[in-house]
């Protein structure tokens, strides 16, 4: 699967792999041919070959940046299964080579037609902000890290490994989210009403979950983990760094509703997916716990707010459930093991972040 070299923002819009940028032109090839002939002289047998490379994770340092990304992406996608036998739902599971059975990551059930139709009012109301947010919206079609990274000093040359971690997170989230979108096959706002008239073209994949939401939140949670791990501070939902990262991701997600290409429920599902995948990626990076989650969109009502998702404060509409039934549920945490390849990258990113972060006072428990 090819994606825009650099960042994956607009999920699924294919581009050339970065290798193409380094391909040799015909004129340079001709020049190399004639130059070699001029200097090569008589062929000499090679008698002392260099040793083969060690085939451990240190080999990663040998490869060019786009190749590293593809390599690590393959590693990160390994073991992920999709169960869409439920027809209007999909479960994402993970099974490492040692596991006898799969562990659940996330289970998503799609909202009903009426639920989506009721959400149209939000899309219409949010259009009031289109003009004002057009700069952000056009930028965010391809650039997400610029916004999240503005919370810290995320310069691509100064923080190379950290940038790689986050680009990896964005890219892998993008792949997984496409498979989920296919399984749920949700219509976009533009398909419900001729009055939506989005301000950018509606992309060619399903509406729920929102790719921008999934990716922004996945990257935000992973970035925050890097920062707290590097600074050896306690993560906290009241930490100003956490709050700003969440608000930025939230605004990127809401901007998609402003643009007319997503419903608020898409962003809610996207955040739940992003948060769960972030825990999964972090586990693959450094062995940690993952809380499996369920998002049941049937009977969803209301607007998207990141705080409500964190508090799991969404409930099905009263016509579906007399007693309040939650839309988002969290299961017991399960430990998942890191991959040595991914661990290497993670450690290098942590070293960078340790340089980036000024010593901060311990966050309040």
């Amino acid at each position: 699967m090819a994606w825009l070299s650099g960042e994956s923002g607009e999920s699924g819009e294919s581009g050339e792999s970065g290798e193409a940028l380094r391909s040799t032109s015909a004129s340079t090839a001709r020049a190399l041919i004639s130059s070699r002939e001029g200097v090569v002289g008589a062929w000499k047998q090679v008698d002392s070959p260099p040793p083969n490379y060690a085939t451990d994770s240190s080999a990663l340092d040998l490869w060019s940046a786009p190749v590293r990304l593809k390599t690590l992406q393959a590693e990160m996608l390994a073991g992920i299964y999709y169960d869409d036998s439920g027809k209007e739902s999909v479960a994402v599971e993970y099974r490492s080579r040692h596991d006898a059975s799969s562990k659940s990551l996330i289970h998503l059930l799609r909202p009903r037609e009426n639920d989506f139709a009721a959400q149209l009012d939000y899309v219409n109301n949010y259009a009031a902000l289109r003009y004002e947010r057009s700069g952000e919206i056009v930028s965010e079609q391809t650039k997400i890290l610029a916004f999240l990274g503005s919370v810290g000093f995320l310069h691509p040359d100064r923080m190379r490994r950290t940038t790689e971690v986050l680009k990896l997170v964005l890219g892998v989230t993008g792949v997984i989210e496409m498979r989920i979108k296919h399984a749920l096959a949700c219509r976009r706002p533009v398909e419900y009403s001729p009055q939506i008239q989005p301000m950018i073209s509606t992309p060619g994949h399903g509406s729920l979950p929102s790719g921008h939401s999934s990716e922004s939140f996945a990257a935000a949670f992973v970035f925050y983990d890097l920062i707290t791990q590097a600074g050896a501070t306690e993560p906290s939902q009241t930490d100003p760094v956490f709050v700003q990262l969440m608000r930025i991701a939230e605004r990127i997600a809401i901007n998609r509703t402003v643009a007319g290409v997503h419903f608020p429920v898409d962003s809610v599902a996207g955040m739940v997916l992003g948060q769960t995948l972030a825990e999964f990626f972090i586990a693959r990076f450094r062995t940690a716990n993952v809380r499996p989650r369920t998002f049941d969109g049937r009977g969803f009502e209301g607007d998207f707010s990141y705080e409500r998702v964190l508090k799991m404060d969404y409930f099905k509409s009263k016509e579906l459930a007399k007693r309040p039934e939650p839309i988002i549920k969290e299961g017991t945490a399960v430990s998942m093991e890191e991959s040595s390849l991914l661990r290497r990258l993670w450690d290098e990113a942590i070293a960078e972040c340790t340089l980036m972060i000024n010593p901060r006072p311990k966050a309040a428990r």
Partner: protein
Amino acid sequence: MTVFWQEAACERPDSYLDWEYRTRKTMGETWCSVLIRLVPDGDDYLPALRKLREVVDQGRQPEDNVSAATISIRMSDDERAVLARRIGSGKPIDDIEAQFFIYRLEPFIYDGGGYRKHSFYETIFAGPPIVGLTFNDRNETAEPLTFPHPIVTNKTVAIGIVDDGIAFAHSRFRSSRHKSRIAAIWLQETERRRDRDNGVLFGQRLDGNSIDTLLAAHDKDDDIYREVGATDFGANLYNPLASQVTHGTHVLDLASGGESEDRPIFAVQLPSAATIDTSGVTMGSYVLQAVRMIMSWADQFGIDQKAPVPLVINFSYGLSAGPKDGTLLLERTLLDLVHHRSKHVAPTRLVLPAGNNYRARLTASMKLPSTAAQSLDWVILPDDKTANFLEIWIDGGAAPKHCSVEIELTPPGGLPSIKLRPKSNRISALTVEGRPIAGIYYLVTGTDRDARERILLAINPTARNENDRDLAPSGSWGISIKNRSRRPLDAHFYVQRDDTPFGYPHRGRQSRLDHPRAYARETQTGDYRLHAADCPIVYHDTLSSIATSPAAGPDHVVVVGAAEATDGYPPADYTSSGPTKLRAGPDCAAIADQGDAHWGVIAAGTFSGSTAIMRGTSVAAPQVVRQLAKQLVTSSVTAPQGNPVGTADRGRLGEVIVPLPQTCPVQRRYPV
């Protein structure tokens, strides 16, 4: 080219009107609005009331000496109904109730330089001729608007609005799909197509039932405006209700959009002619008529249930020059009407914006010891199609026999300057081929120690304009003031407002003051436009000149400044500042900008379902209207409520900042 200064007698008691008269070219039928006060016979107004009704019914005053075919006096039918009620009630009336608004043909208003005297009324003031509007015929029998059986409960509070561009079909002003909350609207500019509305001299009135009929007949707002003639690209020079964004619609949405039928709306849409002439010379009389119309409607609304409704009026407009001591006639008259209704009929409030002139360089202040002189420049812009006015108010002269100062005015471009001590009832005019292009007027108001002197400078447009006025040169006009009295004097300079109002093609351009010491470095913005300490141009005393009545006393008039919803809720950069003689600053403020990158506030665009962003003290005022209306449901005492303002900012924000009402269902940003 023969250019020289010439002195002449004034032809009008109001200097602005004298300049308008002196510099106009031809004009058709010249109707002017006139505010009159009846003269009682001892204590009894009844004879004068009857006499007024008689001449209005006949259409002429006997002393006019016109033929039976000529109409020389008119009155709107709603005002005629008020007159009839006052005669019929038999109750004694006070001198506010003895005031009426009539229209007279211009020649009959004046005599020499003053108002013509009549036996049964005196003229308080007259407006300039009404320009660009077609006049309706008159009704023999008055046909005032009536409001059969509106549902008035003790929760009903009416909202009045005088503005430009009010989209009366908008869904935000309905209580249900086909039911408008607008009980009545006077479109001062839109003639009715088929049967004219002869109940008003110009324009047409629509009552709630007519609007409901239109709502039932049309799905699109635009079709309604076209049917009514408000939008007509064939006939109208301006079609404000065809633009995306209109001032009146945005303001009315903030004041009362989305409310229930307990908030009926009385609206008057000003004509483009008035809105375009922002000097307020034209504006004043339209506004006064509008407010009188709104009150006469509100007094009639719900009369069957014997419950005169409380009324909050929003007038999002301001002027920048005037005495600024509560005596400006327009301001005084508006306040009298509001106080009177509040005292005798039902609680009434008028909410005004504080003005957006903080940085506009329209105000200067000089302290002149005896024989001292100071100068500054008045910059008149090129491509300015409307006249420019500057008022210089002098205090400390104490009942002077002659003007306390000598003024020297030096035009740009080598035209002759003049140095003089101007005289009352005289104008000194700079003439080109005998036609005036600039003028100096003088008058004294008040008596003895309260005496104030005013010099008015008038300068013609600098670009070819529709009224074909002769052009004055643009550039810096030098003004020098020398104290020729023995007492120290204070001189206040106020440039009159003259910009193009929102949404109109460029016409007027705002002139401003200038001085070499007005270029110190401003630490807040980093630019070089700070007024140094010894520069006469000042930031304070920039409040709208119709919002200067005392803040103490009955809180019937509320002046609102603009705050920005960023850390510390600072004043918006443009929001005008007190103190004026009777006021430290506005009474309160509201949010007019939600951030440096999120300027303005969101409210209704012209068409149902659309939104627009606008900023300014104009959008702060209606938010306070909304809050006061809510308070009037349960109490007759109102006071703006909100977060208290620190002492340093009270001159620009008043006592509290009223929170932003939720007229837009989405959040633009996390609030501070």
